[in-house]
C-alpha cells in the first residue's frame, strides 16, 4: 500500500490508450485509477453520491411541479427586479450565475498556480474565488429576503402552488449550504497555502497527514461541481 502523493507520478504513466488501457488498469494491482491520489478519488466518489442527492431533490421538485393542480407561479416574473425604472426578468439570477461561473474561472487559475507552487498567487486566487462565492450567497440571501417580504413562505405564496416556495427554499437552501461550505474550505486551504504548509509538508492538525498542493485541485473539484449543480438548478427552476 502506498500513500499516493501527487497526480501523474509513478509507473502508471504510459499505459495502453483508450478502453484497453482502462481495462488494463482495472485488471492491475494496487490502484484501479492509476495516478489518482486517494483524496482525489474520494472527492470524485463523494461528488457522485452528492449528484444523486441533488438529482433526487430536482426530480422531486419536478414531480411536484408537474402534478400540482394549482398553477405554478411564473419564475421570470417572480424573480424580476426593477432596476433604474426598468422591469428586468431574472436579472438577479443572471448576475448570480455569472458570479458563480466566474468563480470557477478563478478557481481553475488557482489550481494552475498551485501546481507551479506559486504560493501567493494561489492563495490570492482562492480568496478571490471565496469572495465570489460569498457574493453569490449574499445575493441569494437578498433574494430570499425579497421573496419573504413579498409573502412567499415554504408553505404558501401569493401566486399559486405552495410547492413553489417549498421547493425554492429547499433547493436553493441546500445548494447555498454547499456554496457556504465551499467558501469555508477555500479560506481554510488558502490560509495553509499562504503559510507555506504545502512547501514544507507540514502535518495537518487533525489527521497528522502531510498536505500537498493537490488539495487545491480537490477543493476545485468540489467547487466546480457546486457550480455545475447551479447550472441545472438555474435551468430547471428558473428557466422552465
Amino acid at each position, binding site marked *: 500500500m502506498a500513500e499516493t502523493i501527487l497526480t501523474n507520478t509513478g509507473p502508471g504513466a504510459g*499505459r*495502453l490508450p483508450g478502453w484497453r488501457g482502462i481495462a488494463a488498469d482495472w485488471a492491475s494491482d494496487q490502484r484501479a*485509477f492509476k495516478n489518482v491520489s486517494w*483524496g482525489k*478519488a474520494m472527492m470524485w466518489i463523494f461528488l457522485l453520491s452528492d449528484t*444523486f442527492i441533488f438529482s433526487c431533490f430536482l426530480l422531486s421538485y419536478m414531480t411536484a411541479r408537474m402534478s400540482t393542480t394549482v398553477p405554478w407561479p411564473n419564475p421570470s416574473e417572480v424573480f424580476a427586479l426593477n432596476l433604474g425604472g426598468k422591469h428586468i426578468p431574472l436579472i438577479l439570477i443572471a448576475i448570480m450565475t455569472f458570479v458563480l461561473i466566474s468563480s470557477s474561472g478563478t478557481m481553475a487559475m488557482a489550481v494552475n498556480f498551485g501546481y507551479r507552487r506559486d504560493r501567493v498567487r494561489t492563495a490570492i486566487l482562492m480568496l478571490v474565488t471565496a469572495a465570489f462565492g460569498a457574493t453569490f450567497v449574499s445575493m441569494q440571501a437578498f433574494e430570499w429576503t425579497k421573496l419573504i417580504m413579498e409573502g412567499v413562505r415554504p408553505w404558501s405564496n401569493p401566486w399559486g402552488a*405552495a410547492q413553489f416556495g417549498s421547493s425554492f427554499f429547499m433547493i436553493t437552501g441546500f445548494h447555498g449550504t454547499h456554496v457556504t461550505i465551499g467558501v469555508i474550505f477555500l479560506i481554510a486551504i488558502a490560509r495553509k497555502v499562504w503559510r507555506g504548509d504545502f512547501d514544507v509538508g507540514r502535518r495537518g492538525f487533525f489527521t497528522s497527514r502531510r498536505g500537498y498542493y493537490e488539495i487545491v485541485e480537490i477543493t476545485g473539484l468540489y467547487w466546480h461541481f457546486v457550480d455545475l449543480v447551479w447550472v441545472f438548478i438555474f435551468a430547471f427552476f428558473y428557466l422552465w
Partner: protein
Amino acid sequence: MVDVPYDRIAGIPPAEAPDVELYHPKSWLTRYVFSQDAKVIAIQYSLTASAIGLVALVLSWLMRLQLGFPGTFSFIDANQYLQFITMHGMIMVIYLLTALFLGGFGNYLIPLMVGARDMVFPYVNMLSYWIYLLAVLVLASTFFVPGGPTGAGWTLYPPQAILSGTPGQDWGIVLMLSSLILFIIGFTMGGLNYVVTVLQARTRGMTLMRLPLTVWGIFTATVMALLAFPALFVGSVMMLLDRLLGTSFFMPSLVEMGQLSKYGGGSPLLFQHLFWFFGHPEVYIVALPAFGIVSDLISTHARKNIFGYRMMVWAIVAIGALSFVVWAHHMYVSGMYPYFGYFFATTTLIIAIPTALKVYNWVLTLWRGNIHLTPPMLFALGFIVTFVNGGLTGLFLGNVVVDVPLSDTMFVVAHFHMVMGVAPIMVVLGAIYHWYPKVTGRMLNDVLGKFHFWVTFLGAYLIFFPMHYLGLLGVPRRYFELGEAAFIPPSAHSLNEFITVVALTVGFAQMVFLFNLAWSLFEGAPSGGNPWRATTLEWQTPETPPGHGNWGKELPIVYRWAYDYSVPGAAEDFIPQNQPPTTGAVQGATP
C-alpha cells in the same frame, strides 16, 4: 506492449508509491476511544450496533407476546405495538445490519484483506463512527420523549407518518428523521473510505480479481449505499420540512381529526418512490456482504476453492446494478400507474438469475468438499437454506397478481424475515465464530457454538415458517390484535401462541452466545494466527490480534487468488495468498 510486467508466477509490479505514514496514538484516549485505527473503529461499530440490536430483539419479544396472547398484557396498547414494530424494523435493517456489515466487518476486514495498513482516511473514518453513535443515541432517545417513538412503520409512509392519529407525532417522527439524516452523513464518511481503500490502496499483487469475495460483497454494497442513501436523505429532509415547516411535498389535502388539515397538493407516492429507491437496494446492501462472507466461510471450511470465482464476482456486481431498477415491486398496491408493475415484475424476476447462480456455486463448492462442520460452516449452511427459502417466496411476491392478495399479510413478514432477517443474521453469527479468533486471539467454544446454531436455526424456522401459512390465510401484518374474523380459524391463534413461545425461547438462547463471547475472551483456547488454516491475508498478519498498521515493517505481497485450498501436489491443503510460488509444480491456482 508498454504494460507493466505482469506474470502469474513471478513478476509483481513494483510499488507505485511509498508506504503510508500512519497517525500514532499517544494516549489511551486516542488509542481506544477516539481511535483512528480501523480495527478499533470496527469494534466500536459492532458493539454499538449489537447493543441497539438487542433493543430491537427485546421489542420483537414484546410484539410476539402481544400477538401470541392478545389482551393479556396490559402494558402493551395498540399505539405501543405500532411503535414497537417501527423501531424494531428500522433498528434491525439500518442501525444493526447495515452498520454491522459495513461499519463493523467492513472496517475490520477491508484493510486486512486488501493488504493495507488502515483505511485511506482514518480521521474521517473515526468521525463516521461518532456520527453513527450520535444517530443511535438520537434514535434511542425517542423512547423517552413525550409521545414516544414514531409508530409509522419502518417505511414511514406519509401522510400518516406525520398526522396526529399516529403515535410519536410530536417528537418521535422528528427525531427518527433526524437520526436517519445523521446516519447517512456518518455512513457516507465511512463508505467513501471503504470504496477508496478497495480501489486505490491494495497491496502489491492484489488485483481486483484476487480479492476475497468478502471484500467484493462489502465493496459493492458500499457503492450501492452511497447511491441509494441519497434518496432516503432527500425523502427525510422533505418529510422533516413537511412536519416542521408545514410544506406539502408529500401531503395531499385531507381531513385530520374532523378538520381540513393545513396541507395540500403534495404526493404521498413521491415519498414511496424515494423510500424504495433506497429501500430495495438496502436489502442488497445487507445481502451482498452476507453473500461475500458466506462464500469465504464455505470455501475455507470445506477446504475447496470457491466454484466459479469470476461468475461470483460478476453476479455480485450484476445484482448490485439490477437492484436499482426494481424498487417499485414494493408498490404494486400503492396506486401507481398499473403498467409500471409489469416492468418492475420483469426486472425483479431477472435479478433472480444472478442470485440463483450464486446459490448453485455455493452448493457446487460444497460438492465433494472436505466439509468441516465447524460453527461458521453450520451457519453458512443455515444461510443457504434460509436464503433459498426466502428467495422462493420472493418470486411469489415479485409477481403483481400474486402479490396483490398477499401484500400486507404475514406472508410478507415471513418472506422478508427469511431473506433479510434470518439469513444475514446467520452470516453475522457465522462470521463472528470465524473471525473472533483474529480479533481476540482466542477461539469461541465449539460445543456452545453448535448448540447456539441448532437452537437458532431450528428456532428461526419454527418462528417464521408458520407465518407463511398465516399469511396465506389472510392474517394481516402490523395488526395489534386479530379479533374475531370469520376467515381466521382458531388454529391461527394457537399457531400464534406457538410462535411466541418459540421466539422467546430462541431469544433467550442467544444468552448462550453472549456468554460464549464473554467467557472465551478470557478462557477460550488460544487460537494462534491462523486457526482455520485459511488463505486470505488477514490470517497472515505478524501479530494476532493485528497490531497498529497491520503488517509490521513490510507490506505483504500477493501472488495468488484467495482460494488455493487443497491444491493438488501442494504440501499443505491451503496456500496463503502471500506465499510466493516455489517450484513450477505448485501453480494449481488460476487468477
